[in-house]
């Protein structure tokens, strides 16, 4: 049973601008250490960071919370699974919210061009 869906679109240039201007302070505010280890060495670093940001926002929407007191960006970690497809790991407030709504699994898809990154999330109960 589908319990929630979310879709988000991010301009890569805005994420790149935040990284360029604010560096580690911005990165540590939004991304987990594992996400940074995955994204930062890549030639298309900004695209990967933007895709993850879109994915986190899509999961927010699927959880029905948006930006809130209880769920923040670092509580949702987006990393490649065994097949290479992105998988979301939820922690703390985000996990609490998922469990409260009866969610068992988050399905995630990310796509991008050089300028835009988009992600969709579906929560299955």
């Amino acid at each position, binding site marked *: 049973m589908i319990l929630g869906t979310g879709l988000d679109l991010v301009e890569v240039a805005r994420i790149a601008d*935040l990284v360029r201007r604010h560096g580690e*302070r911005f990165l540590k505010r939004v991304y987990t250490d594992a996400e940074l280890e995955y994204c930062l060495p890549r030639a298309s670093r900004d695209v990967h960071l933007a895709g993850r940001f879109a994915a986190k926002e899509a999961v927010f929407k699927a959880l029905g919370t948006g930006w809130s007191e209880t769920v923040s960006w670092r509580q949702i970690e987006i990393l490649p699974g065994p097949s290479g497809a992105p998988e979301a790991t939820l922690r703390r407030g985000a996990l609490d919210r998922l469990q409260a709504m009866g969610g068992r699994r988050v399905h995630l898809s990310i796509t991008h061009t050089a300028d835009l990154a988009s992600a969709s999330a579906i929560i299955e109960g």
Partner: protein
Amino acid sequence: MRDIVTQFICEAFPAGAQGRRIEGDTSLLESGLIDSTGVLELVEFLESRFGISVDDADLVPENLDSIDRICRFLARKGAGAAPADGPARASGRLSG
């Protein structure tokens, strides 16, 4: 302080502001003035311009989702405006 915050929002997010007057209690997100990426741009601006540190626990609508809330938050943080011609000002202009 209020004028600086208002000016930043109008300049950094012109598509949302579109020349309209922003009331102090207007929700910046619900009104479409800023989006989620814009929240982060706003936070980085506040840190740079006012010399404060925004912790994860501070990143909530109660502190940031209107100009009134931002001003109260800055006051609680003991914010002081950084020099207008210093590096902090350079970070005040963000493309949308």
